[in-house]
């Protein structure tokens, strides 16, 4: 495609005009209804015009290129594999990559500041719960928009047990996981008959119900003011400084994340994991092959919830303060974005997705007020150009050996 033909420039010119019209009231006029003042900001119009002119050229060029690439791969002439996919599949690449990442992860808290380590702990919590949601959405294909409810259940079960009975982190971890598991089954039952988006909306409803109850039931959950002074994780009764404790939590999270990756990886290839994938591909066919749909869905729900519960306990222990505001529907949406953006069903994809989505807004703080704007735009652009996620799952294929 030639970039600068007359017709292309004309097209971009009209697109620029369209965007100038579109953004006119909101970008140019700013009203102050209290003092009855109007501010006209004509200079913004110029920026929008110029910006959309050049962006539209780039946008159409990249879309065209992507479509040409799709056509090529359809005809089978060149199976273009992305850079990431190559890294994942060739041992020559992934063995050293794993070792480097491993060493980096181990020395991380000693190279970087406490602030960075804290961010990394948060990212690892998200990796863990996103891997849990990956079971529900990526493997079993059930769209869950209320996943944060289980995260809240885990966090609140530790916070309440700690507040009332002084129960420590290590005892609360299995309790939190078990509570979330139970909730997963309880909430799973009524939604078994639902398909697709009805399921999504019911899970969204459950998420909101749990958050609203936590917010309003003051006697039980202390309402919007939340619970503070939650104990940090303990280490065989040794008193740790704040600094030491953060580093300890970091290693704890590394351990838990590795455990999660191990379990999810094993689950994926197990009988139940293959049943999930079958369920995702075709519910009816799956049933016809003799798989118990009810049981399969329930296990997906409950096991996904368990990881959220564990994540919740760690989250409560890490921040030492929780309130219902941490468990809004946006949280569910972010976790879902991690799974889809990373690549549904692919473990490495989900891990990368968590790093991108949690670290991106964190390091965009330099652009402070623009960061959520950029974040939103990044989601759209990523999806338009890589709809399958950063690393799309590669289905296992078996080959006969001669």
């Amino acid at each position: 495609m030639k970039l600068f033909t007359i017709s292309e420039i004309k097209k971009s010119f009209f697109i620029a005009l369209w965007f100038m019209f579109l953004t006119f009231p909101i970008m140019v006029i700013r009203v102050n209804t209290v003092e009855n003042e109007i501010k006209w900001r004509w200079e913004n119009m110029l920026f929008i015009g110029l910006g959309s002119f050049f962006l539209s050229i780039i946008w159409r060029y990249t879309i065209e290129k992507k479509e040409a690439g799709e056509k090529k791969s359809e005809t089978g002439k060149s199976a273009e594999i992305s850079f990431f996919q190559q890294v994942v599949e060739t041992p020559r690449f992934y063995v050293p990559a794993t070792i480097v990442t491993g060493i980096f992860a181990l020395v991380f808290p000693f190279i970087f500041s406490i602030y960075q380590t804290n961010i990394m702990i948060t990212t690892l919590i998200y990796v863990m719960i996103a891997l849990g949601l990956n079971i529900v959405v990526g493997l079993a294909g059930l769209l869950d928009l209320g996943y944060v409810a289980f995260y809240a259940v885990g966090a609140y079960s530790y916070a309440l047990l700690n507040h009332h009975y002084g129960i420590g982190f290590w005892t609360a971890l299995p309790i939190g996981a078990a509570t979330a598991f139970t909730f997963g089954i309880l909430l799973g039952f009524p939604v078994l008959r639902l398909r697709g988006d009805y399921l999504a909306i019911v899970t969204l409803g459950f998420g909101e119900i749990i958050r609203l109850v936590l917010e309003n039931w003051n006697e039980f959950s202390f309402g919007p003011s939340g619970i503070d002074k939650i104990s940090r994780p303990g280490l065989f009764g040794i008193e740790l400084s704040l600094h030491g404790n953060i580093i300890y939590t970091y290693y704890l999270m590394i351990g838990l994340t590795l455990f999660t990756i191990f379990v999810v990886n094993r689950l994926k290839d197990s009988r139940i994991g293959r049943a999930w994938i079958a369920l995702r591909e075709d519910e009816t066919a799956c049933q016809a092959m003799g798989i118990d749909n009810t049981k399969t869905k329930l296990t997906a729900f409950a096991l996904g919830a368990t990881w959220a519960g564990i994540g919740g306990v760690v989250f409560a222990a890490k921040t030492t303060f929780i309130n219902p505001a941490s468990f809004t529907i946006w949280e569910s949406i972010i976790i879902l974005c991690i799974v889809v953006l990373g690549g549904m069903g692919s473990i490495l994809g989900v891990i990368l997705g968590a790093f991108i989505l949690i670290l991106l807004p964190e390091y965009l703080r330099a652009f402070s007020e623009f960061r959520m704007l950029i974040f939103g735009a990044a989601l759209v652009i990523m999806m338009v150009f890589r709809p399958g996620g950063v690393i799309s799952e590669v289905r296992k294929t078996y080959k006969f050996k001669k």
Partner: protein
Amino acid sequence: MDWEYFLELFLGGITRGSIYALIALGYTMVYGIIELINFAHGEIYMIGAFTALIIATVLTMAGFNQVAIVVIASGAAVLYSCAYGFTIEKLAYKPLRNAPRLSALISAIGMSLFLQNYVLLAQTSDFLPFPSLIPDFEFWEPYAHIISSQELVIIITTAIVMILLTFLIKFSKIGKAMRATAQDMNMAMLLGVDVNLVISATFIIGSATAAIGGVLIASHMGQINFYIGFIVGIKAFVAAVLGGIGSIPGAVLGGLVLGWTESFFAGYVSSDYEDVFAFIFLVFILVFRPSGILGRSVSRKV
């Protein structure tokens, strides 16, 4: 039983429900055709309300009379919302038409975040007082304690929009094309329906009803900010699902049922748990009718 109080709650429920229904229409129409939960739909409603506020303030300062202000501001809100709906579809959804469904959903979520922050940055994060565009009618004075003239206007406008929309879908050429596309997009394409045009038209019509809803609710509530779209968007989506997503009468019924549920529960039990009850009711209905009140349950042939 206090009948007057009951009537008040009943009519309050209708008012709320009509707003939900107006916005739910956009969800349900888009879903019916491309099976996408258009998360950015709530933001379109928010942009409609903002446009109306901005234009109305400018016109008030310029000294226009009340009727002209209402007409021009609402017209601008509808025009701009339609323009935004059209552009969003072209930018964020059209390239993803053959992609996995969840990818389009994430794209919609990204768009929703983008638009919220765009308005936040270009305007303000504070609540802006919204001028009451609908005056109190004098002839309605005796009944105003049961239902205010504003609420009356909301109900009547919604009813008119619904009737017009039904005619549009049932009898116009584009309406026929829309129904055909909703049934089977490939077949419609083979029969010469311009599917791109139909999808654009769906987004435009949905955005127009959302803008009308936006202006009505903003002048009823008296204040707006950049976040109003999200909450109402979720509620409207719940209404659409409750009625059976993809069905237009379903969206109206779902909106009304949700409005009544909230209104009665807040009136008789507790306003703290109003939303909890609305969601529990939703779960309850979906457990017994898994595809919504008016949704047809699809039995698949294998």
